[in-house]
């Protein structure tokens, strides 16, 4: 009886003590030389499939492309390629790879590695969102499109459906090569799939059987549906990769043929989508297991140390990287911290050396203090509103212009964003070399009223109630409310605001279920085309319903225009059309909001917010002084 009465508290006490000891037991971690906040957890370390900035920061440290970007002004510098030649028509690039480029397992980086990596990236099965980065290469697009663009007579490769059971995801089956004779549509096989897709999306390519001649024999292949008589099951039929403009001339020479002259191609080869991946690593471990720290073989300045999900990615200086002597940091930690406020706390307590963003609430204070470690700099990013040109009266350019003229952008930057953002007069942000931006309308209420009256709505009479849609972020809400009152005061029209969760917001925008929608765009490469090609008719990111034949023509012509100056002039003309027609209203150009501790060297504020870790170093003496000063406070 006594025993029974007293064992319970004792057991609980022991359990609590053991539990506490377990919870508090941590293996000590060697401290990093450089720690930064990387925002959200990265989507993947596979260069072919990611799209974001946090991913870019890690992948740029782990891998290296043919070229690098100089952190000062982003001009391409030699990477794996030590030099290159460009043909006179600007379409053929010959890259000479440096002999000293090594994978982290010690093997040399060869031209074949690039051919393998680019084929994999373009393969529909890889489902690379940024596949279009490879479509500048001749026939790259046709390869990714699979059967859709194939025509009789095309050389094709057939990937057989003979992957063994339990094969690693995205392993390749056996590949046969031949010549396409005929595409035979399979009727009604895909009705179920047709049902499933959204009415606004492009329907999937109709199911086909492919008649191919291989070594003089005609064979029938099919990837979907019930097999026709004599047909063989395959995974997919693609254009023969030999037709795609990338060839390994020898181990250290890579010849790339482009679809069109692409003045920014050397920038693209420094972007992670075109980085090489290690074939043996991938084929041994399969995707995505090849990215695990114990498996990953990479060719950049750093190797992957370890990953703790939503905690940190640790990178360690590579001792096989060709330029290893120039790399100063030994251990780098990238922290996955979602909250800007938490990141800011970490920075202010000296726990991290760099945060790429600061909370909106502290910006005005930081600006007032004029801190040397917070110097917002122009970024290649634009904040703008889309106008749904399929909904009357927004189909009338005069109405759209009136709306744009009635917005006081200066007030937005002064009262809401506060970090020194610049009111936008153009869609393409400033700072791009050799490009003179087109000029859009300035703030002019009288003109706005006149245009609105001309369009049939004097003093806003008869104007329907429209709304401004945005995703749930406080600053978006404040801007929308400000514009709401500006429109109301200036034009006498009634405007509502509509706040949506991310998914709903994207959905409504893509399906044109909005009046006015908030948007932003980050340039992918330093060229106006990255902004302007969005608004071609039915462009995936147009999302305004706007269409202008002359605009489309200019964008298309500029792609193949050999003379750089004339090309820029064409793009400027296109931008002017965009700004005259106003399917979008540019509001302001973003600024970068990095905070960097004063003892960090080699950190340059550039247009694209690219900060290669191999350029960064720490002034240790200054750091010690800084820390002891902080302790004294």
């Amino acid at each position, binding site marked *: 009886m006594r025993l029974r009465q007293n064992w319970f508290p004792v057991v609980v006490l022991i359990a609590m003590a053991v539990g506490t000891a377990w919870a508090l037991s941590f293996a000590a971690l060697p401290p990093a030389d450089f720690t930064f906040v990387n925002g959200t957890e990265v989507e993947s370390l596979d260069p072919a499939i990611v*799209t974001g900035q946090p991913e870019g920061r890690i992948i740029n440290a782990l891998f290296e492309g043919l070229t690098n970007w100089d952190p000062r002004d982003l001009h391409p510098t030699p990477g794996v390629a030590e030099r290159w030649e460009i043909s006179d028509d600007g379409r053929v690039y010959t890259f000479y790879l440096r002999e000293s480029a090594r994978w982290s397992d010690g093997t040399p980086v060869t031209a074949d590695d690039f051919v393998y990596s680019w084929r994999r990236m373009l393969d529909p099965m890889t489902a690379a969102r940024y596949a279009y980065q490879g479509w500048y290469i001749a026939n790259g697009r046709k390869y990714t499109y699979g059967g859709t663009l194939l025509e009789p007579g095309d050389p094709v490769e057939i990937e057989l459906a003979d992957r063994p059971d339990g094969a690693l995801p995205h392993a390749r089956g056996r590949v046969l090569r031949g010549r396409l004779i005929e595409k035979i549509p399979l009727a009604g096989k895909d009705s*179920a799939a047709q*049902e*499933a897709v959204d009415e606004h999306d492009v329907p999937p390519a109709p199911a086909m059987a492919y008649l191919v001649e291989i070594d003089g024999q005609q064979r029938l292949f099919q990837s979907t549906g019930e097999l026709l008589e004599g047909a063989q099951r395959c995974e997919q039929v693609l254009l023969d990769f030999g037709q795609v403009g990338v060839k390994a001339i020898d181990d250290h020479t890579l010849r790339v043929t482009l679809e069109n002259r692409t003045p920014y191609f050397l920038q693209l080869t420094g972007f992670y989508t075109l980085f090489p991946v290690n074939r043996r690593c991938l084929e041994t471990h399969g995707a995505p297991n090849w990215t695990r720290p114990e498996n990953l073989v990479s060719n950049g300045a750093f190797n992957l140390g370890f990953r703790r999900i939503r905690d940190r990615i640790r990178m360690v200086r590579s001792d096989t990287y060709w330029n290893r002597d120039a790399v100063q940091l030994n251990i780098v930690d990238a922290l996955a911290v979602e909250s800007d406020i938490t990141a800011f706390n970490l920075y202010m307590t000296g726990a991290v050396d760099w945060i790429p963003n600061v909370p909106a609430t502290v910006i005005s204070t930081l600006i007032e203090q004029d801190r040397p470690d917070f110097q917002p700099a122009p970024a290649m990013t634009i904040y703008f509103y889309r106008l749904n040109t399929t909904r009357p009266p927004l189909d009338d350019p005069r109405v759209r212009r009136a709306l744009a003229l009635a917005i006081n952008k200066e007030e937005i930057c002064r009262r809401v964003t506060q970090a020194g953002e610049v009111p936008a007069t153009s869609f393409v942000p400033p700072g791009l070399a050799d490009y003179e931006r087109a000029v859009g309308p300035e703030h002019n209420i009288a003109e706005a009223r006149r245009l609105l009256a001309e369009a049939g709505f004097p003093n806003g009479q008869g104007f329907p109630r429209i709304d401004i849609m945005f995703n749930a972020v406080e600053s978006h809400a404040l801007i929308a409310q400000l514009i709401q009152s500006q429109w109301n005061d200036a034009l006498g029209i009634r405007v509502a605001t509509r706040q949506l969760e991310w998914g709903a917001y994207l959905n409504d925008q893509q399906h044109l279920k909005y009046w006015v929608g908030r948007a932003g765009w980050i340039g992918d490469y330093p060229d106006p085309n990255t902004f302007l090609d969005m608004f071609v008719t039915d462009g995936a990111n147009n999302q305004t319903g706007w269409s202008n034949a002359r605009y489309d023509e200019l964008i298309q012509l500029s792609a193949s225009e050999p003379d750089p100056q004339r090309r820029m002039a064409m793009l400027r003309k296109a931008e002017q059309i965009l700004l005259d027609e106003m399917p979008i209203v540019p509001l302001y150009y973003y600024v970068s909001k990095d905070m960097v501790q004063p003892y960090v060297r080699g950190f340059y504020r550039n247009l694209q917010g690219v900060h290669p870790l191999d350029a960064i170093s720490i002034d240790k003496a200054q750091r010690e002084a800084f820390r002891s000063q902080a302790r004294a406070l």
Partner: protein
Amino acid sequence: MIGFLLRRLVWLVLTLWVVFTATFWLMQAAPGGPLNSDRKFDPVVEQNLKRRFNLDKPPWEQYLIELGNVARGDLGYSTKMADFTVNQVIAEGFPVSAALGLLALVFAISAGLVAGIAAAVMRGRGVDVALMSAATVGIALPNFVIAGIMILLFVFIWPLFPAAGWGSASQLVLPGFCLGAPYAAYIARLTRTGMLDVLNQDYIRTARAKGLSLPAIIYRHALRGGLLPVVSYLGPAVTNILTGSLVVEQIFAIPGLGVHFVQAALQGDYPLAMGVTLFYTVLIYSLNTIVDIAYGVLDPRVRLA
């Protein structure tokens, strides 16, 4: 006892199926999905992505495929953290949440019990009033407010602890406290009420008349009866602490399951959202079963049925 457990197991399977079905169709109904992005990609690329995630199939077919996979214990790959399987994410995140929750619980139980007993014994005096006021505040304040105050006090004004992160004992103090505080407050109030009830009983008066000292009376006689309400509260408290740590995890950048849960839902990461939901279902169900068994041990009047 074995029959009881078996019955519970059958119900667990049924519960999981219902939760799976509800979660699946709710996610289908929600706008967006794993392919959400503010930039739209080429239609062919979108098709390839849909095929990769089986989204090109009709919903009922997706449902059956998913159900089959889940039944085999294969929760698939996270779509927003594509390098990891859902099982890996849970296996890495849950111990973190559990360690944090355990500390919070230990703090809540020890602080709550001590405060509750002290308040009961010194009923009506200043100590009682002070402790119970603190408890009321502790229950009323949401933990992000507590966290904000704690960070201000103990990170910036008096820099005792790191601002956030995971990897050392000192990083756990503030989040453990913030997570445990409301529970400590609640336990203190429960203990006080329970103890007061017992302290007024005849047998306590008898013990006192026998000349037993106060600590002896409390430990030998009062505690057992007085703690029953606390024990019955512990079951839900444990589940709430383990599943409710998301705010604290987010503020202190702790890589636990709570953050995964919220982010998965926000980012349309279907497999991860589903996996964590099912995992929480199993967890809550098991904890409830354990509490039911504990009742039977502590209070012979309760029979497992």
